[in-house]
């Protein structure tokens, strides 16, 4: 990694900088009173795979609900077709943050929840984990959504949205 600033630059800037040293960071780290007592668990490899299976099911069902092919969704959400295919079908695949963000924006599903399901965060809400695994277990890998699946999908998305608010 190359540092993009020189000592000459530092000398000039420090000569005019105010008499302060900047600090950054969220209050949940510094203020115990505001830290949410979230029901989180640290995930093992097996848990990550289960969550990614649930993510794949969720993305596939949301896509089917809109009647879109993989190619159509990748165009509309501005993501790679291959990456989307991997997310839907390969639980060993680590989705890039950008892809998760685009899916979150396109389907209006909270980013934090999708990130947890993608296995990119180490700690995951236990309730989310249990709900997601249960949801995925009841889904079939069909090219169309049954009425039951549609109901389960809507309920799961509502839970994700509700948790994001709370």
């Amino acid at each position, binding site marked *: *990694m*190359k*540092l*993009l*600033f*020189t*000592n*000459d*630059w*530092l*000398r*000039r*800037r*420090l000569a*005019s*900088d*105010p*008499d*302060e*040293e*900047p*600090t*950054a*960071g*969220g*209050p*949940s*780290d*510094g*203020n*115990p*009173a*505001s830290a949410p007592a979230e029901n989180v668990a640290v995930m093992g490899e097996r848990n990550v795979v289960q969550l990614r299976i649930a993510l794949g099911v969720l993305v596939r069902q949301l896509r089917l609900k809109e009647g879109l092919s993989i190619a159509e969704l990748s165009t509309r959400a501005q993501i790679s077709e291959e990456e989307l295919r991997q997310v839907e079908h390969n639980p060993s695949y*680590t989705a890039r*943050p*950008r892809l998760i*963000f*685009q899916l979150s*924006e396109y389907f209006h599903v909270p*980013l934090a929840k999708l990130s947890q399901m993608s296995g*990119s*965060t*180490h700690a995951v809400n236990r309730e989310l984990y249990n709900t997601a695994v249960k949801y995925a277990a009841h889904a079939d890998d069909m090219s169309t959504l049954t009425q039951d699946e549609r109901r389960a999908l809507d309920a799961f998305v509502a839970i994700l949205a509700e948790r994001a608010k709370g």
Partner: protein
Amino acid sequence: MKELIGERVLIERASGTEVPAQIFRTLDQKNFEDFRNRWHPLLKARRAEVSSWESAADLNAQDSHWEWVEKALEAERMMGRDTFAVECAGETQGLMLVDVGFGRLAVQRGLELIYVELLATAPWNRPKFVDAPIYKGVGRVLIGTAISLSVELGFNGRIALHSLRQSESWYRTAGGFTDVEFDADKRMRYFEMTEADAATFVSD
């Protein structure tokens, strides 16, 4: 594994002289011990002087509960996370933890950036925390490092952070950040640096 990424100067405030400082990527046991044995006792003692977290801002001690050791060890296991340290005179003078995030400003909404999750300078370098702070420039060096990482990762210098109250004016003026909004969830102001801001920050 800890890696030396460069050497830059800090200013010793009392004498006005320059001193060499080393910038490292990935914290090691030495940084952990400095935090535990040197930083933390001072932060804890100062924090105990005031009753609320809000008023700890007046003493520059709002970060007294940050668990750098745990955070750094956790970061090693997580994709996208990275830690940095500035050392000088054999001691840890500053620490930074970063993650990958996404822009909120209209010009870079949804684009990847480096999110500075935690950034702090050693207690003895902080105005208001001590009467005679020792070194100046640790924060600027760390922000410059975050921009350098952003460029290396292809994010073109974009970075973001939530500022503690006492640092807001630094980010607005000296730092050249854009003050995006008050983040109600975190109860802090959220700042972003655009590609253009970053180019200005490191320009001569």
